[in-house]
């Protein structure tokens, strides 16, 4: 379980990174990288100002 970032929508602002309780996200220049510590809490999904993050439920 994880989230996906639509990189065609993403404005690479870092809002999602700052709220991630698992430190699973990183803003690398102009894209977001997600590591496997994501626990699917969806906090980032609601914070993203442009709605670029989708929750992936298996």
């Amino acid at each position, binding site marked *: 379980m994880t989230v996906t970032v639509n990189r065609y929508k993403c404005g690479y602002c870092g*809002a999602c990174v700052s709220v991630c309780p698992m430190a699973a996200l990183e803003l690398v220049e102009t894209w977001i990288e997600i590591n496997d510590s994501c626990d699917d809490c969806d906090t980032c999904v609601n914070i993203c*100002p442009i709605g670029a993050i989708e929750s992936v439920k298996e």
Partner: protein
Amino acid sequence: MKNKYDVIVVGAGPAGSSVAKTASKAGLDVLLIEKRQEIGDPVRCAEGADKEGIKRHIKPDPRWIAAEVKGSYIFAPDGTKLQISEKLSGAEVGYVLERKIFDRALAEQAVSSGAEVIVKTSATGLIRKNKQITGIHARSIGESVDIKAKIVVGADGVESKVGRFAGINTTLAPKDIETCAQFLVSGIEVDEYSHFYLGNSIAPGGYAWVFPKGEGVANIGIGVRGSRSGKGMPVKLLSNFVKHHFPTGKIIEVVFGAVPASGPIEKTIANGLMLAGDSARQSDPLTGGGILNALDAGVMAGTVAASCIEKDDVSEKALMEYEIQWRETIGKKIRKSLVVKEKFGTLTDEQFNTLAHSIEGKCKSTMNVFDMILALFKANPRLLWEFRNLIK
């Protein structure tokens, strides 16, 4: 790039460049790294800043002043207009900056003071010896490198990693962040005032702004409190706001960003490490202004770094001087702002309107944001009882 410095500063925004300039002026060997290939770009800011405050840090240059504003208009949900002047309107208006150029000018100041700047280089971790932080693991244009330093300063913004690497919890709860969208809008009529619009349907737990950027152009944006936002809410609300208020406007740039609005966090230092600016959550929770606090904190951090290195003690205990200095100044202000923000977050639109009516026409031209808060309290002591401790 060498493999050893006195100070490594991570992040070349206002806080980082201010630390680097101050520390190198004091004679230290300083490396300033920026993860992006360009300093100041992409912008994630509404670009308003207090003029007198900025002038304390850098000589004004028309290249990075997009516009100057005389003051602010604040609009209640029913359209009631309050006015505050420039002279005392707090830390959020005065200049509307061109951040792309401003940030680079600050970095140039650091360089001319003797600092070394390297771009497209990010910190990926910290080097430790015993319990002391002694440098960073970095990725510089795709290559892994280790760089040693007596002190590492994290000035790596809202998405800060350096604090977390050091074991400092900088994670923001959704209620402690404003999630923002902004359009640079052209072809509209603008005046010489910054405009702020309050209301739960306009911007839940935040506000909308219009900051003039010169003839017919303005930054128009919206900040929503994270705990009240939903997927993509800021950009949807902003699109509606612009359509409604500026139907002829043409969007020529889009900006996204987030502002820490937590008030002071528990700690911003560790053995051999300091945080400054947005990474230290030093932005104002009420106004969202962060540039001046970052510049001021940068001077404090750079000065303390120099005195600690001179005394050959960079322990957390020695760096406590920085923690004390910024809490006494910036910390006090943002703690007060947090009280006001928390209360405003509970008000209905009707209550906002009532408050605005209570001081409509009574705002003196010398009022600043805080004077206005006090006037509101005096006129509405029951509604704003939480503000009683702010009067001192």
